[in-house]
């Protein structure tokens, strides 16, 4: 049978030889169909033959006392779309032809009961029809079933299984579902499925992951500050970059090749404090979708990964919140109804403490100084706010706002006017951060079609101002002075309009399509200087080039279930980027498929092409406010990547998911700073410092995950090769990528010890980062004013740092009103090598004569020791 090429045959050979007319006696109420089949096989001697997935979630009710086989089968499949045919010793099951019955569509939202937060990725099934749908980012689902009675079930990790009872579906039906949190289920019971199991076993996606808020909070991290990016760093194929920071290098890609989105709006600067913390406040987020291999048609604009952070909508029922006090920052969040069942709000704020510590320290230090004073202050803050309003079951709207800000102030003031007549004041203000504002409207156009229309503004800006004033006075008269002011601005601002549609024309098709427009404004690097003295005034402005670009995009993708065993997701994302009279085009096809060769097994393959029109110029592995976002200009071409990937997945008892994913990625038109770019003036045109090139990355990711039970977690191993080649870098020769961490092992374990205590532990071991180590020196030509050892240039990333390993621990103590978190970063204090430097080993030899010996040596720089931390979260 053609449609059953990939059919699983469940056959039980029974020794009994029974006549077809033999009568059957059995009683079953809501029992899994497969178990009822076993009884029938025993009594009838016939085998059941059917496709894998045909019976997914099907429970049957039948009562028969000495009835004929056909009567029993008719009763059992009544109200379902399953038909049967008895052929010889086999009972062949198949789905009824679609045209045979009238279809109706059930649609609605799946939300958390009590808070009304949308639940993303929940699987809604009709047991009779044997069809299923997953909720989208807004919790919307659409399911087409045969007219008649049907029962909906929903399972989602952390919530009680939901069963609707019998619904009489005679026409299209709007049906919203509220799921109830059940923490016991998480800890004790085996659940029927999960978002990530669904992604692994049912979807076509390769390398797709969903992280819930609780998973992120359970991951032990430095300073106890839970962080979505640091949670993702534990995934195979994701390199963390420099220890302790929120770097993310996915499958050998660069740091700017990840698209970070906040409710589908791009965020450009995702770090605070040089990358020690990410911009995503865990208290404000609901869950996160992460894509690293196959990409839905909806996403484009970055080469390596896409991360969509969904923020909380706020409860429609009651006010909830929490206050968290940690060593480095504090956070407050609250959400609740403004108009019960109609309007909700959510507000979260987080702020670091560092400046509150430095201000009194500076004040104390300054009190001991005469005629001079110093100030130093650093702080970061982020605010997430959201208001959602439900006009009706079909129409909701929201307004979302995000504000992230870092500032650094350093000043010094020498005022010795009374003594020498001189004064010298220096002030440095550095401020950088994001603002995102968006308005969205979600509307159920029809039971089969859902639309979300969004208008948004996203801006990243940094401003650095340095001002020094100094001079001399005699008898209070200024006889000489200098007032020198430097300012540097970097800005990217996007006005965004987009419409995204979900359309389910047929139970086997789920179509996503949409259009978007982005008006980009770039000010990559404006430098201004004004110098004023008693006899001279000069002002200069460099790099005032201000770019405006228009980006248009459209996409369509269809998730097509060809059969129970075969599923295909095909799509395309097309975009135009118009800048300075030039229009760049990109067509990004996407194709992924899933084949189920046997029950609990899935085999997948995918191809994705991605294009990137904006990129970030970074000098280092840490996040600096001077890192500039710049567009493709001049003769540059958009960066692009082609990626093929394949995976094999196995689910063991719905408890464990095993996966092996391989990939090969070709990257084109990559941009990087060229050799000796630093010898160009800092305000030289930024594109003159760049060189274009290409790269490849290939590897395999293995993972075993257990998501539920008292003990959960995952173990993963990844193997990676990544290289780069640029025309004007490293003499044009190919070199390994910096974070080409060949082997990487991650172990993550969460253990709920009892109601009061929970423990999390993670261990990471990986090949060290690549490092450019200059080993040779040459004689100083003595041209510069100061004299150093000259270093002879060498091949880039010629040295691999020693093997890196670290364990982090976290304990949570639940109290009546909240919980304490005790954590230890680098618990066994293995100070890993982050670099190698050259220094002298000084020693004294006391023998015949006392001698001082200073030998030049190479030294490993090892950075972070054990860092314990504690925080308390009060929940109200």
């Amino acid at each position, binding site marked *: 049978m053609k449609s059953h090429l990939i059919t699983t045959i469940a056959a039980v050979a029974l020794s009994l030889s029974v006549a077809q007319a033999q009568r059957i006696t059995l009683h079953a109420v809501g029992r899994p169909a497969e178990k009822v089949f076993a009884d029938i096989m025993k009594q009838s001697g016939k085998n059941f033959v059917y496709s894998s997935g045909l019976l997914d979630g099907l429970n049957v009710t039948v009562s028969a006392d000495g009835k004929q086989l056909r009567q029993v089968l008719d009763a059992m499949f009544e109200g379902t779309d399953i038909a049967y045919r008895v052929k010889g010793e086999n009972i062949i099951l198949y789905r009824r032809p679609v045209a045979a019955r009238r279809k109706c569509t059930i649609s609605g939202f799946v939300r958390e009961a009590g808070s009304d937060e949308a639940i993303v990725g929940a699987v809604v099934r009709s047991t009779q029809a044997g069809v299923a749908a997953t909720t989208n980012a807004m919790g919307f689902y659409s399911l087409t079933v045969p007219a008649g009675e049907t029962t909906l079930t929903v399972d989602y990790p952390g919530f009680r299984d939901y069963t609707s009872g019998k619904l009489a579906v005679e026409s299209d039906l709007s049906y919203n579902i509220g799921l109830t949190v059940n923490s016991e289920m998480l800890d004790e019971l085996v659940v029927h499925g999960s978002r990530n199991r669904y992604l692994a076993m049912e979807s076509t996606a390769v390398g797709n992951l969903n992280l819930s808020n609780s998973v992120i909070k359970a991951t032990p991290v430095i300073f106890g500050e839970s962080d979505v990016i640091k949670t993702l760093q534990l995934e195979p194929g994701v390199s963390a970059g*420099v220890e302790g920071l929120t770097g993310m290098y996915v499958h050998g890609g660069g740091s700017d090749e990840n698209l970070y989105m906040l409710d589908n709006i791009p965020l450009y600067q995702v770090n605070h404090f040089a990358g020690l913390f990410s911009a995503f406040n865990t208290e404000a987020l609901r869950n996160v979708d992460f894509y690293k291999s196959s990409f839905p048609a909806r996403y484009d604009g970055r080469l390596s990964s896409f991360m969509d952070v969904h923020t909380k909508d706020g409860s429609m029922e009651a006010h909830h919140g929490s206050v968290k006090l940690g060593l480095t920052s504090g956070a407050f969040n609250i959400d609740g109804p403004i108009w019960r069942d109609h309007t909700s709000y959510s507000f979260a704020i987080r702020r670091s403490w560092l400046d509150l510590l430095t201000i009194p320290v500076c004040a104390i230090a300054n009190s001991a100084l005469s005629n001079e004073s110093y100030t130093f202050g650093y702080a970061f803050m982020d605010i997430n706010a959201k208001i959602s309003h439900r006009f009706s079951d079909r129409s909701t709207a929201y307004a979302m706002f995000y504000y992230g800000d870092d500032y650094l102030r350093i000043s010094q003031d020498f005022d010795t006017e009374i003594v020498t*007549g001189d004064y010298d004041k220096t002030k440095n203000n*550095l401020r950088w951060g994001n603002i995102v504002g968006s308005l969205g409207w979600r509307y159920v156009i029809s039971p089969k079609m859902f639309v979300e229309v969004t208008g948004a503004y996203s801006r990243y800006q940094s401003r650095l101002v*340095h001002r020094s004033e100094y001079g*001399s006075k005699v008898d209070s008269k200024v*006889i*000489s002075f*200098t007032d*020198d002011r*430097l*300012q*540097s601005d970097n800005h990217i601002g996007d006005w965004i309009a987009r419409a995204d549609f979900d359309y389910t024309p047929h139970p086997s098709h789920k179509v996503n399509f949409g259009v978007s427009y982005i008006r980009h404004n770039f000010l990559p690097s404006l*430098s201004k*200087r004004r110098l004023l003295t008693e*006899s*001279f005034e000069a002002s200069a402005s460099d790099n005032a080039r201000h770019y405006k670009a228009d980006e248009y995009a459209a996409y369509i993708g269809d998730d097509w279930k060809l059969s129970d065993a075969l599923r295909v997701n095909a799509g395309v994302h097309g975009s135009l980027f118009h800048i300075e009279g030039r229009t760049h085009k990109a067509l990004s096809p996407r194709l992924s498929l899933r084949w189920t060769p046997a029950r609990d097994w899935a085999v997948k393959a995918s191809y994705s092409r991605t294009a990137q029109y904006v990129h970030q110029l970074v*000098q*280092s592995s*840490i996040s*600096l*406010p*001077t890192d500039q976002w710049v567009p493709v200009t001049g003769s540059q071409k958009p960066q692009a990547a082609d990626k093929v990937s394949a995976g094999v997945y196995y689910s063991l008892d719905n408890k464990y998911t095993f996966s092996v994913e391989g990939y090969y990625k070709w990257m084109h038109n990559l941009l990087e700073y060229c050799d*000796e770019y*630093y*010898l160009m*003036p*800092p*305000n030289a045109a930024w594109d003159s410092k760049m060189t274009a090139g290409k790269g490849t990355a290939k590897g395999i990711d293995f993972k075993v995950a257990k998501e539920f039970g008292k003990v959960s977690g995952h173990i993963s191993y990844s193997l990676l090769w990544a290289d780069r080649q640029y025309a004007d870098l490293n003499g044009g020769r190919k070199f390994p990528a910096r974070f080409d961490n060949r082997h990487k092992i991650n172990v993550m374990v969460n253990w709920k010890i009892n109601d009061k205590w929970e423990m999390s532990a993670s261990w990471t071991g990986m090949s060290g980062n690549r*490092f450019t180590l*200059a*080993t*040779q*020196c040459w*004689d*100083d*030509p*003595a041209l*510069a*004013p100061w*004299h*150093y050892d*000259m*270093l*002879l*240039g060498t091949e880039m990333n010629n*040295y691999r740092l020693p093997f890196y390993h670290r364990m982090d621990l976290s304990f949570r103590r639940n109290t009546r009103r909240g919980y304490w978190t005790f954590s230890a970063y680098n618990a066994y*204090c293995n100070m890993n090598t*982050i*670099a*190698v*430097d*050259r220094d002298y080993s000084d020693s004294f030899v006391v023998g015949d004569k006392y001698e001082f010996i*200073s*030998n*030049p*040596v*190479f*030294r490993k720089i*090892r950075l972070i*020791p054990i860092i314990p931390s504690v925080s308390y979260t009060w929940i109200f």
Partner: protein
Amino acid sequence: MDFLTRIIISAAAAATLSSCFSEFDPKIDSTPVLCMNSNIVEGEPIWLQLTRTWRWDEGDPGSTLDISVDDATVDLYVNGEFKERLTAAVREPSAEFYDPTKGPEKGFEAEYIPQQDDHIRFVATSKKYGEATAETVVPRQVSISKVDVTPLNVTYWGNEDGTTAGAMFDLDIQMHFTDPAESTDYYLFSYGSENTFNGYIYDENDVLVGSYGEYININAYSLDPNYEPLFSEHVSVLESVVASNSGYTIFSDRQISGRTYPLHIHMTNISWNYHSDVGAVDELQCYLVLNLNKISEDYYRHVLSVWVANDGIAGSLGSVGLGEPVFESSNVSTGAGVVSSATGNIVRIDISEIIKARQGS
């Protein structure tokens, strides 16, 4: 406290407080190559030092490591034509970089005296270390049209008989020079002092009975580079916060090409002292020497790279593994070192005039 607890606490303390640095051998092969250094000055004899590169942990050149090259020849080409083979020579190191442990400098010298616009090329060959070549063009002298000097904050003191005097003052100088429009030019501003009135007095038995002298105390920190924007054209805003630019007085003509520009030189805390055991002297001769050099591009790139490597953000991040390291710029192909050139234009400012004017005021 039980035994186990003691052990756990001791181990934890030891691990936490363990050193952040540890010596090791990175086990990377490195092959030494020739290193050629020469700064050619218009009108002065050519001096070239030829050494070899060395692996950092091989030793300390001059004390525990010999990096001289004995089997090498160096050929000089001027304007594309072979001029001569340099001859090995020894000279005393310059006073500025004098290191008594290193002794006289070994090098090569040429008979040819370089001129402006000369295209100089060296080819060095060694059986052990291979070949290295480098070239440079001797720049033309810059044209200085005017120098305005304004003394500031002059504090003068002296005894009545005029045998001892001193002063402390600042100088604000505007040196007007014209950059040629037709070429890309690089500059180095340097300064020093020149004293001719200096000596000791002996009696008829050659016994020291007195001294006389006049000198200016001026050093690398006397110049405030902030007053002249060109001196910091290589400093980004962030670097102006975190990096020092002290002593670096190189610049390019990127912002002043083809224009006459007043270079703003602000010097502070210059001290002048005068002492004479032979009675008051009317004709003092003490000069502040200002030199505006045109330098070759190789010179400029090298000095700039030294600043970036040691003071700039890129170098600072690279040195601790947070970015790519910065290598000091070399223009020697298949080797290391810098072959550069410079042509100066010296202006002498008579400090005595300033002092006398103040003395009289």
